[in-house]
């Protein structure tokens, strides 16, 4: 395989930080090249430079042996760089075809959009990414993975030779990830190079040929995936070894604190489970399985039609989150930016926001007491912030998540529901968060952990319930649970069948080397 793209000594300085410091490596033709590093390592900055969003301060990009310098995004696009950004870039109220050809729709006379030609070309692109959809369908009607594939079709529409995927699996489930990987393999066969950025390291071994590691803006090296272990990559990223194993706290089934019987709503039906004291209870499932919806129903944020919820032996039916909070239930949202944090408020305000009552005397908030207490949590959770007055939006993903954790720790809820505890969080912070969750369980909190990352549930949970399309498909004790079994239940396939067919099914080998 020959070299398609070289980074040569790329430097980039932002006010106060050296974001990139002499990055040098190459990407070969037709390879999937992983790019990893903790938050703030410089991956996004490097990709933004490659996509023409801003120029490097020093250093050069060499594309097919020729030095290139992109003035703007369009220039990069026409040179064959296709970028799929982490955030969705589609407009829901327009058709797939218009989204793919935004701003450069094929035109007839007088610059009129040639819809026929546009829809035909879009249809061909959709086929190429494995989507069997009408190009005139509105984007708002598509599922998450469909939108992701449309984004890729959009990036490919300019004959991209290099496709940059920034956290492509952040919003899709593991089964859907396999669909994405199939597409990436297809593209690779056609000679397209893919630069693949992900926090989910397990994915690297199943999709990447080589992987490059950045740390604090400095290039750490490139390894051939087949010859390197994930432990090694993690060591390169963080410079220390991380233990990623289930912590046996000696938990035993005990009197349930929360009993859920036959809970049903529009999103799920007939779900029953028990949550025991000090347990970490996992809920696994694909997006749309009804995991988050159950949490919202228990928390009183969404209504449910039927079913009984028993809390400490007494029947309850919360209709407002305030009621659930007062009864000792906390909920950490899966979408911390949209539904959890007040991004433009300081760290301290974010932590005390659910606890204002405790810091109020005669209607006035006692800021000093609140700050003292927040300081304690910041230290305990090792939240990396210059001060309590720092605005939350300036913190990294991991530290933002810790701020949310601190809020509910301060609330000292008896039951805490944590939805996607480590989404968009780097490896180092992930492990810290796992530690805190375990510590909370040890200290007496009962925890429901919802996650689309199966390994995460496996190392955290004492028991795992699996859901598929709104129904409970199984429940496994920690000792019995494996990724294969969980994946089967997630896909709605009973475990007996799996045993008969043999557990070697390649499609379920998601975890790779973990």
């Amino acid at each position, binding site marked *: 395989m020959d070299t398609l793209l070289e980074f040569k000594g790329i430097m980039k300085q932002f006010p106060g930080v050296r974001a990139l410091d002499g990055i040098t490596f190459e990407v070969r033709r037709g390879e999937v090249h992983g790019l990893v590093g903790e938050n703030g390592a410089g991956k996004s900055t490097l990709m933004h430079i490659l996509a023409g969003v801003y120029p490097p301060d020093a250093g050069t990009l060499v594309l097919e042996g020729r030095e290139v310098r992109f003035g703007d995004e369009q220039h990069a696009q026409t040179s064959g760089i296709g970028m799929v950004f982490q955030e*969705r870039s589609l407009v829901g109220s327009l058709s797939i075809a218009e989204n793919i050809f935004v701003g450069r729709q094929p035109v007839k006379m007088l610059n009129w959009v040639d819809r026929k030609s546009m829809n035909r070309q879009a249809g061909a692109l959709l086929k190429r990414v494995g989507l069997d959809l009408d190009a005139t369908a509105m984007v708002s009607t598509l599922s998450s993975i469909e939108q992701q594939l449309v984004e890729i079709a959009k990036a490919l529409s300019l004959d991209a030779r290099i496709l940059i995927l920034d956290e492509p699996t952040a919003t899709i489930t593991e089964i859907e990830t396999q669909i994405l990987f199939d597409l990436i393999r297809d593209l690779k066969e056609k000679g397209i190079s893919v630069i693949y950025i992900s926090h989910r390291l397990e994915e690297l071994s199943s999709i990447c040929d080589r992987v490059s590691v950045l740390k604090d803006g400095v290039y750490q090296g490139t390894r051939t995936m087949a010859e390197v272990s994930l432990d090694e990559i993690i060591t390169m990223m963080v410079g220390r070894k991380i233990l990623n194993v289930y912590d046996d706290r000696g938990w035993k089934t005990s009197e349930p604190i929360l009993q859920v019987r036959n809970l049903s709503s529009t999103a799920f039906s007939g779900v029953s489970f028990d949550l025991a004291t000090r347990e970490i209870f996992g809920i696994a499932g694909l997006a749309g399985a009804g995991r988050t919806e159950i949490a919202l129903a228990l928390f009183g944020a969404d209504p449910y039609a039927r079913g009984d919820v028993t809390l400490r032996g007494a029947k309850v039916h919360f209709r407002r989150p305030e009621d659930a909070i007062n009864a000792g239930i906390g909920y950490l949202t899966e979408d911390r930016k949209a539904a959890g944090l007040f991004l433009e408020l300081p760290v301290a305000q974010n932590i005390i926001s659910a606890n204002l009552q405790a810091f109020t005397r005669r209607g006035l908030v006692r800021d000093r007491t609140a700050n003292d207490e927040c300081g304690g949590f910041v230290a305990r959770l090792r939240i990396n912030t210059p001060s309590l007055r720092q605005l939350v939006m300036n913190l990294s993903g991991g530290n933002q998540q810790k701020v949310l954790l601190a809020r509910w720790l301060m609330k000292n809820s008896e039951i805490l529901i944590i939805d996607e505890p480590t989404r968009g969080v780097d490896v180092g912070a992930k492990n810290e968060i796992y530690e805190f969750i375990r510590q909370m369980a040890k200290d007496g909190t009962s925890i429901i952990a919802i996650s689309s990352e199966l390994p995460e549930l496996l190392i955290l949970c004492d028991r795992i319930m699996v859901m598929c399309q709104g129904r409970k498909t199984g429940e496994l004790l920690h000792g019995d649970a494996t990724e294969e079994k969980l994946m089967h239940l997630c896909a709605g396939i009973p475990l007996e069948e799996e045993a008969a067919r043999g557990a070697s099914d390649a499609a379920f080998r998601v975890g790779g080397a973990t």
Partner: protein
Amino acid sequence: MNGSNRVKDAIVNQLINNRALSLLLLLVVLAAAMSLAFGGIFFAWSNLSGILLNLVSEAILAVGMMYLIVSGVIDLSIGANLALGGAITGICLKGSIIFGLVIHPQPVPVAILWGLFASSIGGLLNGLLVSRVGVNALIATLAMSKIIGGAALYIGGSEIADLPESFNMLSQTRVFGFFMPIYYMLVIVVIAAILLAKMRYFRRFYFIGGNLRSARLSGINVNNTLTVMFVLMGLLAGLAGVIFAARMGNASGNTLPNIELNVITAAIIGGGSLSGGKGNVAGAFMGVLFINVIKTSMVIAGIDIYWQPIIVGAILISAVVIDIVLQERYGASISLRKLQSVRRRTLGRAGSA
């Protein structure tokens, strides 16, 4: 999914997404009801022509406002800009002295061009404030509405009477029973509708309103497009002002109260969304027509005038609420479809489901 469901889906889809069509249906029902209740034919020529003549200004403004709303911004200075266009045209026709500058009476076309030019400059200032300086569109155009409105009043005074007949006939001529302004309005609406639906340049508006960052990254020059859009809005306001002045036979520096809010109301009833990315010109026009027909019906029905704003407010809220409810219900049925469209290479291998 069977055939009847498919048809049902298609109908629901049309009703949700084609606001112009659903408003048209409502109008037909309303007209039929009015005809039955009060005898005669509600949409008789005379009545229809009266309704249309009254909504010319609002309809022309609604076109530009819909462009802006689709792009995720609004313009509160259009009422003032309309007054400015009329006032400048008026003083150019009659001659005057402003800022110590003697203006001699100009020929009609020249006077009109000056009026349109002045309003376009107003729009340009809006555009520059919003796109270059980065002032929020609501604040920028609110401030500009005061500035332009004051300027119009200073220049035009409360009345520039006795405009030349050669100017007035532009709006006071009848063709096939309809006054000319109705034709001007229809031409503008049709052209504007086609531009937004067909032209590549105008399709950009949806992306700017739907996802600003994505529009930028897709190589759309957002700042220039926004500026052009505000200039266009100013030009349309000027046109409306000129047509209105000719219809009245006199110009005025007075801003019509609340016209910008009426126009925004019509655009939202017509399917626009203040969060951007949604709407079309036909919807905006039908929104204006709908509100005006309702108002006329209330007059015919002898309903007290104080009820008018109450009813219009209720309609605005209903339009938005119905939109929310339909989207929720329809959205739910779509999410059940899930992964069916993805070729099940992987799934087939994994589950043989």
